[in-house]
């Protein structure tokens, strides 16, 4: 579309019915093939939207991240790499880096094996109750891993853990059978709650895979073992790796589990060390510097992981989705069928049922340490924290309002930014695309540190110790979710749909309102809940930003536990679980029906 063309077709489409001749009209038709371009007026709506989009991402994400880099590398007005290396070389920081890597590596390997194995079991074998099992393996998605860690602390802490005490009491063991305050303990708990990332990816790939790819191997003479090794696994390898990298990314930057289980034995990873430094030293220059250096390492690692994931997905993503398909063949497990089934049930019992039961039971105790008898258990704690205890009431209120506002704002901002990136053709879009990638590689603790640097009064605005700073952090943290959901929805809306509306006489805005918006609504809805539900239980960013009156649910659970209020902490965790699970079930029903209505 060029200037000449634009001028030739400057008459509005609806008004020229009998006026302009054939040629003018064909030109106009062509002009609209660059959809919704606003080049007519020099500085139009497109530029405004683009500018707004860029401004949001710059203020919310880019500035905090840049401030982190700036603070890390800029000392006394000079660019200084030596000093950064010196900080990395300090024993504490170095150890935290190594710990983050070791824990992430162990968690990733463990989760990948577990997730792939379970995915294979529920899609390719005759395991009993496969559908139910598949649903149950996804439940850990709903459970915040720091609540899981809390439960496992109650079960397996070396002296007070119920399981350890039970064995010491009844079998006369001198020490605990397992100490959860260890690398192994941390990795175990993370595997329990992170393996669904691999599980769901591999399940999806195995289910979508064209069964004839395996059948043709079979008719070629290969047995099931050979097929699994030579055909099935290689074809789903991209999905396995992509899930594994997701876990790696998550675990590297994961705060909760390490904070609950590691600090006791002095095990810090990057996010917990950042937290500890900032928290203890009340914002001293040295601690901020250490924090920014660690955060820089996290951002660089995260960016590398995301780059690697993109490469694997684009290079190795085979077209393996088939045409007409019979159900894929099932491996008969024969003698192993029941043992494997029992193993799965036991896994679910251990990772889901046992921890949640312990949370609810401990939440009902009068005092931590009493045994679970009827006279020791009551609903008093639950009533207390819901109705009388200001700390927890505030926390629930804060989390719900923060979650709602963050979800709403981020949803609308996300749909606008995605629209510019996916659909509009304006100059300067490339910069926005680059900015749009940023939120994906900035972990929660980095965001928190960044907003502290940006919003504590140094640059005019002081939001420190208010809920607003948490809101800004949430928006930055969850922008990636919104961008992903909304661009996916927008990609589905083909340009010709809008063009058809324009040809029918609809204006730009009418086309947007009547065609694009209804089609994108499911994506927006998905974005809303993708943000609202995790925000309800957010811990990593909130923990660095809270003030006495701005605790969130996650922060309250964590701090109550730190202060030795184990019983209250458990009760609040129990209530959080109820809220989260109810919310998730409602969403599944609501959005699920919605999606069906669309189809």
């Amino acid at each position, binding site marked *: 579309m060029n200037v000449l063309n634009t001028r030739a077709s400057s008459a509005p489409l609806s008004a020229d019915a009998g006026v302009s001749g054939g040629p003018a009209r064909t030109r106009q038709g062509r002009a609209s093939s660059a959809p919704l371009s606003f080049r007519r007026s020099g500085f139009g709506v497109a530029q405004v939207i683009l500018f707004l989009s860029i401004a949001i991402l710059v203020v919310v994400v880019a500035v905090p991240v840049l401030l982190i880099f700036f603070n890390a590398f800029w000392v006394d007005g000079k660019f200084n790499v030596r000093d950064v290396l010196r900080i990395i070389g300090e024993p504490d920081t170095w150890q935290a880096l190594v710990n983050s890597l070791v824990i992430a590596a162990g968690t990733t390997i463990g989760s990948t094996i577990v997730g792939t194995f379970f995915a294979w079991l529920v899609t390719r074998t005759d395991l009993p109750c496969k559908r139910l099992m598949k649903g149950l393996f996804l439940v850990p998605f709903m459970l915040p891993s720091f609540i899981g860690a809390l439960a496992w602390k109650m079960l397996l802490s070396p002296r007070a853990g119920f399981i350890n005490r039970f064995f010491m009491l009844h079998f006369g063991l001198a020490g605990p059978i397992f100490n959860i305050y260890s690398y192994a303990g941390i990795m175990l708990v993370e595997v329990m709650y992170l393996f669904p990332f691999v599980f769901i990816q591999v399940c999806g790939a195995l289910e979508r895979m064209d069964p004839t790819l395996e059948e043709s191997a*079979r008719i070629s003479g290969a047995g099931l073992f050979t097929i699994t090794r030579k055909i099935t696994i290689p074809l789903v390898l991209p999905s396995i790796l992509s899930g594994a990298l997701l876990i790696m990314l998550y675990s590297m930057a994961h705060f909760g589990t390490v904070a609950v289980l590691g600090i006791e034995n002095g095990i810090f990873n990057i996010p917990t060390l950042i937290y500890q430094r900032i928290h203890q030293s009340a914002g001293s220059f040295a601690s901020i510097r250490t924090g920014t250096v660690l955060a820089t390492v996290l951002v660089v690692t995260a960016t590398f992981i995301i780059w690697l994931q993109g490469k694997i997905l684009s290079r190795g993503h085979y077209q393996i989705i088939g045409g007409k398909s*019979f159900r894929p*063949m099932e491996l008969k497990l024969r003698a192993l069928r029941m043992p494997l089934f029992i193993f799965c049930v036991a896994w679910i019992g251990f990772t889901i049922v046992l921890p949640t039961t312990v949370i609810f039971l401990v939440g009902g105790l009068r005092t931590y340490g009493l045994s679970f008898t009827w006279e020791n258990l009551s609903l008093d704690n639950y009533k207390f924290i819901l109705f009388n205890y200001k700390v927890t009431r505030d926390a629930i209120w804060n989390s719900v309002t923060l979650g709602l506002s963050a979800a709403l704002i981020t949803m609308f901002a996300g749909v606008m930014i995605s629209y510019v990136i996916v659909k509009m053709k304006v100059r300067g879009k490339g910069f926005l695309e680059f900015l749009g990638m940023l939120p994906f590689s900035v972990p929660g603790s980095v965001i928190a540190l960044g907003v502290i640097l940006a919003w504590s009064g140094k640059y005019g605005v002081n939001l420190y110790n208010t809920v607003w700073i948490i809101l800004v952090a949430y928006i930055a943290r969850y922008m990636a979710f919104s961008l992903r959901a909304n661009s996916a929805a927008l990609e589905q809306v083909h340009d010709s749909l809008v063009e058809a509306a324009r040809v029918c006489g609809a204006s730009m805005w009418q086309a947007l309102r009547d065609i694009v918006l209804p089609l994108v609504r499911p994506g927006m809805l998905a974005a809303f809940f993708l943000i609202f539900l995790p925000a309800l239980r957010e811990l990593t960013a909130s923990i660095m930003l809270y003030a006495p009156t701005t605790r969130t649910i996650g922060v309250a659970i964590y701090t109550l536990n730190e202060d030795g209020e184990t019983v209250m902490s458990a009760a609040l965790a129990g209530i959080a679980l109820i809220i989260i699970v109810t919310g998730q079930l409602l969403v599944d029903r609501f959005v699920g029906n919605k999606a069906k209505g669309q189809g």
Partner: protein
Amino acid sequence: MTEMSHVRLVNVTKRFGAVTAVDSLNLDIEKGECFSMLGPSGCGKTTTLRMVAGFEDLSEGEIHVGGRLISSREKNWYLPPEKRDFGMVFQAFAVWPHMTVYENVAFPLRVRRLPASEVERRVRDALSSTNLLSAANDSPSDLSGGGKQRVALARALAINPDVMLLDEPLSSLDPHLREEMRFEIRDLQRRYGFSIIYVTHDQAEAMALSDRILVMKLGVAQQIDTPLAVYNSPVNRFVFSFIGLSNFLNVVRGEGGGVFLRDEEGNRGDALPPDLTPPASLRNSGDKPFSLASRPSEIDFCDGETGLRGIVSRKSFLGEIVDYQVKVGGQEMRIQKARRAPGPDAGKACGLRLLRPFWYE
């Protein structure tokens, strides 16, 4: 059971829950024969093929190949697909995207642990038969649909199978390529001498390729015959309508033994001309309506007094042929004549003479 019988299906039945997908099918396919199973989707042809391949177990009956029992419900015997030594080509190609063309074709040989030199020789042979030698080291994703289907064929050929199972192998290709591949498959069969069991819903494809055709409907075999016989003497209305273009006129028997047209409301219309007499079996079937079937190309225009009377409602020029739509009583008929042959214009009355009438219940 004949001496030549190569693939034998005896009383083969397959049920999925309450649905009978294949109902007591008996087949004898000879060595080197190209045998097609033809029918609309859901007729059981693919299920039958998958039972021969071993991907589905039987509910009843047995299957023998080359005198060897490979599946039997009664004897509780089942040879898994990987032990059957068949070649098979699937509709969606099913070429493995993570292997090169060469590796795809070598796969069945390698799982059989043939020596490397033998693998090399056979892969080269299969690739040259399918004109793929130059693409040996390409990734299948770089090939067109036709190229992928050649890889699938080469892979199936590599073990030099006695039986080749083809499950709608050409339906993912564009029409031009489809025609070309038909001949290639036939050539390969001549060279390698395998028997083909071919599943398709495309009657032209089945006609062009096959020695014999099985027409199926709802799991039941309707007719097994040569293409010519299936076309010239369809055993029932379904087979007649499935092969080629067809006209059906609803007719009903009158009291005096005459036969009359019958419109949608069930009213009796004109009497049929005397040269159109149904076979005795239908003449005596009471007042149940039945059909008079004809092919559009086997109808002549004639004087209105001697033939079926109708009015031309549409005449369209299709290039080599002219297509007429004629209203006969309340019913529509289609007639196709060569371009040069004279015919009435739209709106004109005409008479029709059916050259080869068929009568069906």
